[in-house]
């Protein structure tokens, strides 16, 4: 094995320096090896130094960081001590880098082909003509649409999922010895993520190049890695083969990570609440609601987003709203909060109609329905103290001032498990998870009946996110607040919600109690979502790719249609002549479970059984990636 060794990181140390010139170590002596044809995963949460370590293999640090010790040897030669010109040749030549956000990493003013071939030509590895030829081969290998001509386009003319794959082509074009992939699928929807993962895995295998895969997502790691390095705070906690780390973790931190990883959503996961808050009265209801942007013409929004929505939030319940980006999840919450008046339909609070616009709502109505924004970073005014941020609703709705307010602020901080001393801090001094807690605390301070939470855990690390979910569950049990919990992550929703609403292209395609929704019969879209969630099992990706529904329109963009079933063009079971023209009826099942589909219950159950059987032999159907990230 020793002679296969490609890259060796030896006792790597990287530090930052603060204003006083004090050294702040970021990476504290990390060592690992990479062998030919091997994928090494660096896994850890933000602040673990994983990106910093991966960049060190290119002899590069982010501005403000400095190498303070150790070596990074490529073929036994330390790259950190190379002269600058040698390092330049290394970058993009021997070692290629793939960044997290392709959309930001592609230069908007240069055509794709020039960017893809640039490094290979500059480092003299290929002539321009050879590089062009190789690029087109790679586009084909990565299953990009219109592969022969996509290179002539500008980055803004292709979709996000495509750009991510084009970046892989950019990295591979110069035939590097080592590829560094920095969270390349984190920003993608689950359904797109699978497609991209599959493409990456295929080319890495075909090119027989080694790779470093940086991620915080264990389930993704399980699909791609041969060797796993678990990092915390710039140190290696544990490393070993993928099999050993996934199936037999030793270090307590790894076990924590595994525990916080989202399990596969299955029936029986839903939290069963049976306490005094769990009443069957509707707390908030949305009836026949249609909404969109661009003004209203003849009772229809110019740009329709949501159509004919009927949902109800029972007292003390958690309703999870799930769907890909572009399905209208956030719009739903915004309509409920009154930020976007609906074009048609009603919103009811305690059986009383609410005005469409929050400007027309009464103060006590506003107080009862609180909206929690996704990004705590932008939702907290950087110039206000935490105490004032949480204190304002107390003062505004409940007239508390002085000592009373102060005491209540401490009490609320305690509810979100933060020390009372935080009241005199500014948001900038808090970590991401702490900020999100303050964000929740502000809404709690209003003493609401319903909290509308828009992707509140999406930007958080897995352990931190899991803790926030735990906190929310506790709050619901303690206070009896109802939640509308919006997320693109089915496993998070499944672990927390009493009911699930599946939105697709602005319509409710399925809703009901969590256990019912996660059990067959499924709406075809729900099935697609469930089967797209990566399992923490080695070999899952290969298995999944063979399932029939995964092959159908998997990465197709969400299109809002004015007639028929919106999922028609992605649905493996679509009935031609019916689905694209008629709006499907609602199939009523037991316990309020509803599926909106033209197929009968029996057909849905039947196809479910079939899909389970079909594991081999299908033709790839459907058009390629139409997914669009425009705007």
């Amino acid at each position, binding site marked *: 094995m020793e002679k296969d060794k490609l890259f060796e990181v030896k006792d790597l140390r990287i530090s930052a320096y603060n204003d006083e010139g004090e050294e702040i170590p970021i990476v504290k002596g990390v060592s690992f090896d990479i062998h030919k044809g091997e994928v090494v995963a660096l896994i850890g949460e933000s602040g673990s130094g994983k990106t910093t370590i991966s960049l060190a293999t290119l002899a590069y640090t982010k501005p403000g960081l400095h190498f303070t010790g150790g070596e990074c040897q490529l073929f036994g030669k330390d790259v950190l001590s190379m002269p600058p010109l040698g390092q330049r040749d290394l970058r993009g030549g021997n070692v290629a880098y793939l960044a997290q956000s392709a959309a930001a990493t592609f*230069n908007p003013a240069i055509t794709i082909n020039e960017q893809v071939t640039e490094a290979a030509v500059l480092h003299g590895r290929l002539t321009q003509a050879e590089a062009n030829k190789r690029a087109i081969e790679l586009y084909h290998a990565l299953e990009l649409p219109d592969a022969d001509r996509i290179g002539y386009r500008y980055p803004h003319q292709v979709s996000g999922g495509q750009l991510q794959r084009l970046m892989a082509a950019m990295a591979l074009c110069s035939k590097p010895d080592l590829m560094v992939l920095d969270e390349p699928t984190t920003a993608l929807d689950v359904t797109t993520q699978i497609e991209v993962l599959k493409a990456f895995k295929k080319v890495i295998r075909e090119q027989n190049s080694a790779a470093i895969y940086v991620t915080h997502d264990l389930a993704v790691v399980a699909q791609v890695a041969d060797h796993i390095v678990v990092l915390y705070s710039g140190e290696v906690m544990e490393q070993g083969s993928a099999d050993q780390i996934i199936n037999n973790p030793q270090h307590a931190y790894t076990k924590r990570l595994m525990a916080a990883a989202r399990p596969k959503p299955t029936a029986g996961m839903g939290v069963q609440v049976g306490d005094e808050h769990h009443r069957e009265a509707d707390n908030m209801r949305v009836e026949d609601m249609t909404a969109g942007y661009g003004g209203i013409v003849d009772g229809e929004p110019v740009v329709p987003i949501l159509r004919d929505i009927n949902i109800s939030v029972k007292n003390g319940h958690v309703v999870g709203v799930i769907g890909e980006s572009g399905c209208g999840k956030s719009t739903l919450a915004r309509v409920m909060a009154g930020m976007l008046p609906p074009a048609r339909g009603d919103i009811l609070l305690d059986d009383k109609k609410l005005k469409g616009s929050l400007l027309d709502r009464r103060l006590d109505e506003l107080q009862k329905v609180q909206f929690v924004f996704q990004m705590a970073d932008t939702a907290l005014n950087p110039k206000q103290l935490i105490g004032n941020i949480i204190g304002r609703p107390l003062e505004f709705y409940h007239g508390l001032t002085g000592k009373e307010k102060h005491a209540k602020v401490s009490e609320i901080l305690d509810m979100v498990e933060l020390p009372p001393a935080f009241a005199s801090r500014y948001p900038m001094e808090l970590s991401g998870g702490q900020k999100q807690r303050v964000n929740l605390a502000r809404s709690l301070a209003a003493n609401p009946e319903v909290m509308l939470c828009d992707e509140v855990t999406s930007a958080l690390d897995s352990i931190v996110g899991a803790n926030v979910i735990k906190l929310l569950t506790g709050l619901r049990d303690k206070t009896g607040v109802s939640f509308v919990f919006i997320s693109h992550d089915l496993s998070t929703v499944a672990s927390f919600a009493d009911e699930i609403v599946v939105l697709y292209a602005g319509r409710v395609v399925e809703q009901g109690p969590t256990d019912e929704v996660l059990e067959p019969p499924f709406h075809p879209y729900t099935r697609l979502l469930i089967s797209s969630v990566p399992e923490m099992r080695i070999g899952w990706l290969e298995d999944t790719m063979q399932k029939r529904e995964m092959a159908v329109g998997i990465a197709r963009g969400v299109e809002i249609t004015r007639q028929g079933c919106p999922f028609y063009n992605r649905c493996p079971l679509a009935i031609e002549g019916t689905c694209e023209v008629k709006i499907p009826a609602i199939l009523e099942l037991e316990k309020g479970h509803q599926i909106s589909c033209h197929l009968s219950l029996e057909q849905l159950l039947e196809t479910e059984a079939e899909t389970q059987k079909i594991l081999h032999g299908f033709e790839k159907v459907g058009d390629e990636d139409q997914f669009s990230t425009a705007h």
Partner: protein
Amino acid sequence: MMLRMVWQRMGIGLVTLWVVSVIVFVATSILPGDVAQIILGQAATPETLAAMRAELGLDQPGYIRYFSWLGNMMTGDLGTSKAGGATISSLIGGRIGNTMMMAGLVAIISIPISIALGLWAAMHPGTILDRIVTFGTLSLISVPEFFIATVAVLILAVHLHWLPSTAYMTGDETFGQLIKALAMPLITLVIVVSAQMIRMTRAGILNVMSSPYIEMAILKGVPRGRIILRHAFFNAIGPIINVIALNLAYLVSGVVIVETIFAYPGLAKLMIDGVQTRDLPLVQACAMIFCGTYVVLILIADVGSIVSNPRLRSPK
């Protein structure tokens, strides 16, 4: 999409020109109150005042005066100067060429210098030479144009005796004499305009330099020169075109000062004389020419940045 935006900008430009004409007219014909009084001065008798008012059409309502003024202006009739009674078109005709020549020469010299120096400074941030450029240009844009002109005279004319301290022109100079006469105002304006352009070019490039795609270029091992020229410049070109146009427009005010200081027979000098003698028709005409040029240059900048944006040039 792009064409529509360009037309839109042109439309806005036209509207702005019209608003400018209103402002100029209101400021010079309505604000001062009785223009006849101003022209005739304190010694005027009520009879001569009335006659003057009738002659100037002041007995008519403001909007009628405005439209007849605008109509005359568009047909090239700029009116008659109060001083000496010469037609304003002839006064301006004799001067406008000089100012145009000066502005044109300044542009030809300063644009290449500025872009080159700006790019060079951006390419070597933090080096001593970069700091000198940054500090030097900052100082130059902080001081009035007349300060630069004064120092230039002190050094080049008084101490070194290389150049004359004024730029008198009779119209029959030899080429060499012409160059010598023009050198001083040219140097001053080039310094003033370039300082601003160098700073903005450097800032524009460095602004783009913090983008993730620049880091990607570094991680691809792209050499420094190519990063700046191919990756950064093409994204900063919109703002840079804007800066160039704005600074050429800025020449307008620079020209006013420099023509005065060096007694250069240009349009701006004519206008200052007009302001000093309160020759309102002359001021109106000159202001319209300067403002019109300014609006057109800004329009060109706008269109330039639209055309240079690939998102607008080749839509999805």
